[in-house]
């Protein structure tokens, strides 16, 4: 098992190193093949490892990192069934995205840099999936952040891309402060920084400490997963190449925050406030994302807000303590959202780099019927039309919320249900506008046989988007919930009242999805010749980004300048220079005394002697 896990990590890293080392001599085809092979080998190792995995988790230590004063951090791995499935999901989606990328990047000259970062990203993501030691996990956590930063700014000739990358890194880094603080508190409190160690000592931990640590980790997770209030970096992150958006900003990295909460489930179990907060944040973000997606024209920004919204549902489930439900939605989302992003990539290339859905229209569907079919599969799953994967997985998260007692969870359910309705509306708005409408000012279509080749890796994802729900169907259907059973020994099993709530919720969910579809048809059907609404509050993400710019970034920059010119140069340096000037004046005075007329010198001396004597006299008496 150790070998398999090590190999799983080794292949992507080796791939990245090879790409970097031979970046000049690799041909385009060789570079793409090498990268895809590395991921395929990693996927094979992941599959073999899952195949051999029993219920009991494996604790593997690959080496020691740092050790001091009774504390040590190791390159240690907790390989359980959750981690096993996560690694398979990550490597599987990553492999398809690599295959797609090989064609997508057919005209870009920096392909070696691209594949290097992509492989490196998979390596760091696998560390997140596997790591037991929280310090080791942090390495992956920051590592994916770095790859995301580098890939958002991949087309760096245009400065906005670069700034978007920096913004993403900095905003997630704000969240990471929570991680570092939590890490330091965990180590200071328990002397160990591993998930297993934390779990073993969880009963001895006071609730207050657990709640504090939980909130800090939740803050970190919000940053990574683009949840409120740290969500505004993700829409800008769409400046990167589309496969990157599919892999990093939809399927894997943004779900790392939820995954962290799943791994820390024992901690959340004894800190109920954290769970409730996570659920409410998740549901509120789901609604926020869905509402903002309504106001976008850029296909990638619609999908980005949709990602924010869908990850919110995962937070909701994780906050309710339903790890297998959250993971179910994570997987389903990884499949349908990466599918949708890659479809969007083809749409954009077919329309000559045009992102605006109001300039695509029915011609695109007629020119590329296969593409439309793929899109329809993804859209059906995202909008949770009955029996698709998204239907079951989203229904499960809502059932968690309603089955959980307490007003916070009720609020979360209501927010989530409204968001589910809006989801269907914005998905079919996108669908009808981009594939059915007849725009007045259409973009020119590109006919390139390569575009059709890019569709090929997407069919498995389309099949999964439609059918993956049957891996974990709700109880009332009478089928075996395979995922729940598989994870039963690893995570807390599902409480029975969730199963009872599921029938009710799935019905509501179906009604919401279908009515959303109908509303979208009413509003955006081709006969109405839909035109884009003028940009409003929804387009700007309800002003969250502007708020940060105006109230945090700009004042900080002003403060920086003020401190530098005002405090540092004038006050502090001024004081030092003032002291120097004072000394200089003093020395001038003394020099004048020495060179003055004898009478002045004498008077001064006598005066000083008199003062001294007076002082002595006063002191002695």
């Amino acid at each position, binding site marked *: 098992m150790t070998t398999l896990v090590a190999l799983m990590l080794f292949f992507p890293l080796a791939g990245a190193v090879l790409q970097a080392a031979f970046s000049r001599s690799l041909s385009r085809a060789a570079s793409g093949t090498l990268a895809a092979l590395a991921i395929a080998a990693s996927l094979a190792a992941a599959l073999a490892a899952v195949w051999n995995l029993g219920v009991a988790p494996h604790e593997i230590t690959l080496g*020691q*990192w*740092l*050790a*001091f*004063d009774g*504390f*040590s951090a190791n390159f240690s791995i907790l390989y359980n069934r959750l981690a096993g499935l996560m690694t398979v999901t990550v490597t599987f989606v990553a492999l398809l995205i690599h295959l797609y990328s090989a064609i997508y990047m057919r005209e870009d000259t920096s392909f070696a840099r691209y594949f290097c970062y992509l492989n490196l990203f998979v390596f760091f993501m696998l560390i997140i999936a596997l790591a037991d030691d929280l*310090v080791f996990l*942090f*390495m992956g*956590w*920051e*590592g994916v952040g*770095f790859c995301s*930063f580098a890939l958002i*700014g991949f087309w*760096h*000739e245009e*400065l906005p891309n*670069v*700034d978007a*990358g*920096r913004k993403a*890194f*900095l905003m997630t*880094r*704000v969240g*990471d*402060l929570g991680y*570092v*603080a939590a*890490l*330091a*508190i965990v*180590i*200071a409190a328990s002397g160990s920084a591993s998930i297993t160690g934390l779990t073993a000592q969880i009963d001895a931990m006071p609730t207050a400490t657990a709640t504090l640590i939980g909130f800090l980790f939740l803050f970190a997770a919000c940053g990574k997963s683009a949840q409120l209030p740290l969500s505004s970096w993700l829409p800008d992150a769409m400046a990167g190449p589309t496969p990157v958006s599919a892999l990093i900003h939809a399927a894997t990295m943004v779900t790392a925050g939820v995954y962290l909460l799943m791994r820390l489930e024992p901690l959340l179990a004894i800190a109920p406030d954290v769970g409730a907060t996570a659920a409410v944040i998740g549901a509120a973000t789901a609604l926020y994302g869905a509402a903002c997606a309504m106001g976008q024209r850029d296909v990638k920004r619609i999908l980005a807000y949709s990602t924010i919204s869908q990850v919110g549902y995962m937070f909701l489930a994780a906050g309710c303590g339903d790890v297998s439900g959250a993971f179910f939605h994570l997987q389903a989302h990884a499949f349908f959202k990466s599918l949708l992003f890659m479809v969007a990539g083809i749409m954009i290339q077919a329309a000559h780099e045009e992102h605006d859905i109001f300039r695509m229209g029915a011609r695109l569907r007629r020119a590329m019927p296969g593409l439309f079919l793929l899109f329809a599969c993804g859209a059906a799953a995202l909008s949770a039309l009955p029996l698709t994967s998204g239907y079951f997985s989203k229904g499960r998260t809502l059932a968690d919320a309603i089955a959980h007692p307490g007003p916070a969870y009720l609020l979360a359910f209501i927010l989530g249900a409204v968001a589910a309705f809006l989801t269907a509306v914005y998905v079919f708005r996108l669908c009808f506008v981009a594939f059915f409408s007849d725009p007045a000012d259409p973009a020119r279509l590109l006919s390139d046989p390569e575009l059709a080749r890019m569709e090929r890796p997407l069919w498995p994802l389309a099949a999964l988007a439609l059918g993956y729900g049957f891996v974990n169907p709700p109880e009332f259907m009478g089928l075996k919930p395979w995922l729940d059973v598989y994870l039963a020994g690893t995570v807390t099993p599902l409480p029975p009242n969730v199963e009872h709530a599921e029938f009710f919720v799935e019905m509501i969910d179906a009604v919401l999805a279908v009515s959303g579809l109908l509303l979208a048809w009413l509003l955006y059907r081709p006969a109405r010749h839909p035109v884009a609404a003028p940009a409003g509050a929804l387009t700007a993400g309800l002003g969250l980004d502007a708020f940060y710019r105006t109230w945090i970034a700009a004042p*900080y*920059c002003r*403060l*920086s*300048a003020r*401190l*530098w010119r005002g405090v*540092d*140069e004038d006050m*502090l*340096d001024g004081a*030092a220079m003032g002291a*120097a000037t004072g000394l200089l004046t003093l020395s001038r005075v003394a020099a004048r005394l020495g060179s003055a007329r004898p009478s002045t010198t004498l008077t001064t001396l006598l005066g000083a002697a008199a003062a001294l004597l007076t002082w002595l006299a006063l002191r002695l008496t």
Partner: protein
Amino acid sequence: MMTQNGFPVVTALIVLPLIAAVALLFMRREWTVRTFTLGVGILECLLCLPLLGYAPDGPAFQFVEQAQWLPALGMTYHMGVDGLSLYMILLTALMLPLCVLGSWTYIAKRVTEFHFCLLLMTSACIGVFAALDFVLFYVFWEAMLVPMYLLIAVWGGPRRRYASIKFFLYTLAGSTLLLAAIVAFRQVGGTFSIPELMEKSYAFKFQVWAFGAMALAFAIKVPMFPFHTWLPAAHVEAPAAGSVLLAAILLKMGTYGFLRFCLPLTPAATETFAPLMIALSIAGIIYGGCIALGQTDIKKLIAYSSVGHMGFVTLGIFLLSTKGVSGAILQMLNHGITTGGLFMMIGLLYERSHSREISDNQGLGKFMPIFMFLFGLFSFSSLAFPGTNSFVGEVLVLIGAFQGNPWIGFAAVPGAMLAAAYMLRLLQRVTWGEPASYKPSWKDLGLREWVTLAPLAALVFYIGLAPALAITTIEPSIERTLAAMRAKNTAMGLTKDMPLAERWLLTGPLAVAGVSDSIRKEHP
């Protein structure tokens, strides 16, 4: 002369550059001067190898050398190495050949004199870290100012006169206070020998004055907020090698002074004033990070970032816990490597563009990929990316902070964020965007430059991924220092929540049982 290991390693390390410096004066050709100094530098590094035999569990001071110097005044020639100084000496020796290589084409005038200064600097710096006699320490401490002053004043930028005099006077002002403290210790303790002084405990009132004088001298050197204003000026004007030495070694002398003198000699005052020092450190972390963001001069940006990073070091020291102090020592080493590397690279950039402004050095990623790879590596190390050296040091300090008092931790954590903000801004401007003044004649790193930076880059990863070795080497020394400190404070009757008025009355017994045993272990 008494030596512990038969061969006087430390003396050899100090004398070799001196002899070489004299020999330089007889050389004519520039190429000979450079090659000769490079050879001496490599020899110096090889001479350091015996120091790697330092036994963590052995005596407190190892590689001890003792000889008569001025017996009438009680001064001895006394050298030794312990966990606090070991890595500083190694770093100093490593920097000599790298500085020679880095200045190979940068320095074109007065080549002999330049290398003469470099050699003197190395000798004096090693002396500072190894001296175990207070006067000897002071001699080296002052001796090192002169070559540094010359490096800035002769080979510096346009405002070099102003910067060099400011640097010289500012640090000299601190040093006079240090001299006063040294004399006072001779009066009260009766000796200049540092190990002997460490065995005794002093009255609280005396400790406060001595601590005040020493702490001010060291705080200027570090430099701690608000005594840092000489640093940006000196860095901006200094030549590349001067900046490297300044950042990598000179600044460490201040923090080394805190560890070597303040903690063992004035333990009660250190503990009393630790909250103040922690507050200043955190102020420095936030303040330095905040100001660095607005800079347009690359060197000034790194200089202000140094204020922030050194804030982490002093924070670690004054947490007075094993975790904090080990993190601090590691961070001293890391800052030397990372910031040294960055200054070296800025020097290489300056050779190409003759400007240190960010706006003149934009968009180089496409043309100088190897340069940007290394620049990115050091930048990410500077913002404490996990897997690089600085992460380990910073995390140790932060863990120590949270263990001591969570509020200190919460106050220091944003420093990590600020570092990311200004380093990314710098890195992105320099790497990406439209090249402002790129000329095709600029070349990517040549072999010589690559060799200059490779050791530092390797150390970034080595310490980042396998720091366990470094920590276990220094830990016993740290624990010994802290244990002695606690023992002295307990013997004095100092308790944690004692009001200052009561502390003021504490008069210490002159010798504390247990402390002297652990320090005396050095005598063979």
